[in-house]
């Protein structure tokens, strides 16, 4: 998701916050030195012949972009054979479109960052990208999908489980809560939606708060709703097997959920501030809303912005739907190696991926941005380093991604999914503003999505 935050900025700007960050600052420096030292050792044996230059188009603006630049600089400093140049190409959608236009003109970058909703477009175009697993194998970089955190493994994989895109900024939806607010209301963070509706919500309302808001209805209340409850989201194994996929969003569980959400809104237990991410996060940051469903990657940003103690817990579920909730999957974006490049450049891309997935780099990225580390090894490093003793909330996302898997928890693969999400957002907005009812809205979403899927299937011949 778009959520992100940066402890770099934290280090720079909020030197007086909670007194925690000075230590963090020092540790960050240590890590950086360690990182450079470690990578320097690994690549010490490389020769100083002509450099192979590769480009990386990404959608990470602001502070995140700075962190991306730092990673690229570290890679360039770690060896002398390859040089990577990251280029910020605007939003996720703009980056994907620019990449497509460039590909058609034969000017594609070596690496392109593609977000979750665009995955089907880039993976569906057979021959546009080199599967990352093949790329690494061809260049003698060891790869084992089981090194990756369970919730991360298959989202950008094909039907056979081969990893196509390298997960990069990965996050998952979790529930943040204002500790003061919960203490004042005398409640604990809710595990289930039943608990929220009967206990947590009313108590928080009583205490003078708006109990809940969320920042991405399709991602949190639809895609991950299905995963958490292990419900099928689309036919053909959530779309991974391709062909004539139909969306299964018009089901009783989710309709009951949205009916409940609308009721909560009417009762003052939930508020919706529009489709934009930040608009829904802001009332939580301001202390008006007691609990907020956001991204695990929002953590770093929240530390900067709020002046009350907060923590996080896993995404609540309906006990009545599934008493044994499953893992969620990742949102965010992945890095794809574009085809049509020379062997030397592909080698450079593989080496960069190798660098990127090293535990040190992953841990640095995790710590500075709040996105989850994608490998178990990096998770171990983070644990050993005591990161989670200091920031327990930073671990919630990984724990949730590591819960037991179900049949429907690896993700989804649907074409024109950007538009499908837009349709969902539109209909959900209308439900919440009372312009339409739940039945009509879901019938519309189903019909329009299936129309889009049918159209997409025709683009793939």
């Amino acid at each position, binding site marked *: 998701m*778009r*959520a*992100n*935050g*940066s402890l770099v*900025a934290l280090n720079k*700007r*909020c030197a007086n916050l909670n007194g925690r960050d000075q230590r963090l600052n020092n540790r960050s420096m240590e890590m950086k030195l360690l990182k450079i030292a470690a990578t320097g050792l690994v690549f010490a044996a490389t020769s100083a012949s002509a450099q192979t230059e590769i*480009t990386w*188009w990404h959608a990470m*603006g*602001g*502070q*995140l972009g700075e962190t991306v*630049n730092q990673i*690229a*600089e570290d890679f360039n400093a770690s060896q002398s054979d390859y040089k990577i*140049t*990251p*280029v*910020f*190409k*605007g*939003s996720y959608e*703009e980056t994907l*479109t*620019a990449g497509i*236009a*460039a590909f*058609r*003109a*034969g*000017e594609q*970058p070596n690496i392109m960052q593609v977000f979750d909703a665009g995955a089907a477009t880039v993976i569906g175009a057979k021959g546009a990208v080199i599967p990352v697993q093949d790329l690494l194998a061809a260049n003698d970089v060891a790869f084992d999908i089981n090194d990756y955190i369970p919730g991360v493994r298959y989202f950008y994989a094909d039907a056979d489980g081969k990893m196509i895109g390298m997960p990069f900024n990965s996050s998952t939806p979790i529930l943040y809560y204002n500790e003061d607010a919960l203490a004042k209301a005398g409640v604990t963070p809710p595990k289930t939606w039943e608990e929220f509706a009967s206990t947590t919500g009313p108590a928080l309302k009583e205490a003078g708060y708006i109990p809940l808001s969320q920042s991405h209805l399709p991602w949190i209340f639809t895609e991950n709703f299905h995963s958490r409850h292990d419900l099928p989201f689309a036919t053909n194994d959530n779309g991974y097997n391709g062909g004539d996929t139909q969306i299964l969003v018009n089901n009783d569980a989710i309709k009951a959920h949205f009916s409940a959400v609308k009721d909560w809104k009417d009762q003052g237990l939930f508020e919706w501030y529009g489709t*934009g*991410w*930040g608009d829904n*996060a*802001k009332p939580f940051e*301001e202390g008006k809303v007691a609990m907020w469903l*956001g*991204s695990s*990657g*929002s953590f*770093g*940003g*929240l530390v*900067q*912005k709020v002046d009350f103690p907060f923590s996080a817990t896993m995404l609540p579920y309906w006990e009545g739907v599934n008493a044994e909730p499953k893992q969620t999957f990742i949102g965010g974006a992945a890095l794809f190696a574009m085809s049509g490049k020379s062997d030397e450049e592909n080698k450079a891309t593989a080496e960069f991926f190798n660098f990127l997935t090293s535990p040190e780099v992953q841990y640095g990225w995790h710590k500075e941005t*709040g996105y989850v580390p994608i490998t178990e090894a990096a998770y171990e490093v983070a644990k050993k380093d005591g990161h989670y003793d200091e920031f327990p909330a930073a671990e919630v996302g990984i724990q949730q991604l590591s819960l037991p898997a179900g049949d429907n928890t690896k993700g989804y693969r649907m074409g024109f999914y950007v538009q499908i999400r837009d349709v969902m957002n539109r209909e959900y907005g209308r439900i919440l503003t009372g312009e339409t009812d739940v039945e009509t809205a879901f019938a519309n979403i189903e019909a329009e999505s299936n129309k889009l899927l049918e159209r997409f299937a025709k683009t793939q011949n």
Partner: protein
Amino acid sequence: MADLTQTQIAQPTPTRLRFKWSAVFDHLVLIAGSLLMLMPLVYAFVTASYDPVTIHREGLALTFGDQLGTNFEKALLEKGGFTKTVDGMVMLKNSFILGIGFAVGKIIISMMAAYAIVYFRLRFATFAFWIIFTTLLLPLEVRILPSYEAIQRLGMANTYSGLIVPLIASATGTFFFRQFFRAVPEELVEAARIDGAGPVKFFIDILVPLSRTMIAAIFIIMFVFGWNQYLWPTLITTDESLFTLVRGIKQIVLTYSDAAIPEHGQALALAIVAMLPPVLIVIFFQSWFVKGLTESDK
């Protein structure tokens, strides 16, 4: 209505009194209108004096904070991007190149075309005119992907000409000049021909000087248009050294949906920097601009 008329002379006192009241009212309306137009800019300028956290928490402000200098300095001089070479000054330069290049290119090309259409006996003049005319049909937003492919095939991506030339495709300038040339008295051409002046000499010595205000007005309009482009520069430039101001602003505004605190103080400072050159040009050359604008529709 300054001049005293017979009506006013017939009934001097009440009319004058009424006129005074209406003048006060006129000024009030104009002051209200000016405030309406300018207040947002005042807000923007004042708010640019705060740090991002304050702006994020409190929004627009009308009393100055203490970060004005810092924000402008950061916006203009802080090297950003991967290559650490892009700052506000570089973007300012690029915006100038885009604005001036587009305006000059458009004026030269469209003047030539309009001259050919208006002053020559040409069998396909009407046809050529319609070919040019239909370009108003398709704004760049709508034909952006194929235009990009064309630029790539011509090897013009990441060049200033690639940035400028496709924007020139629209024919607005040709129309303005065509209308203007048609209003030029025909005797001029006849006189020139009697003097033995050829088409090139007539064009350079008579028509161009005659079109001065028109050229100035179109220059201003086109400069502002080119300066303010966003979507096209974003798509075709991957080289950081080619980024323009409007793109730089959008880049900061884009983090709006992110959880990180957006650098809105810096964005506002940059917005003011981006606004100044076109505003100053419009204001300093306003008489030409106004004259050209209003003549163009004749």
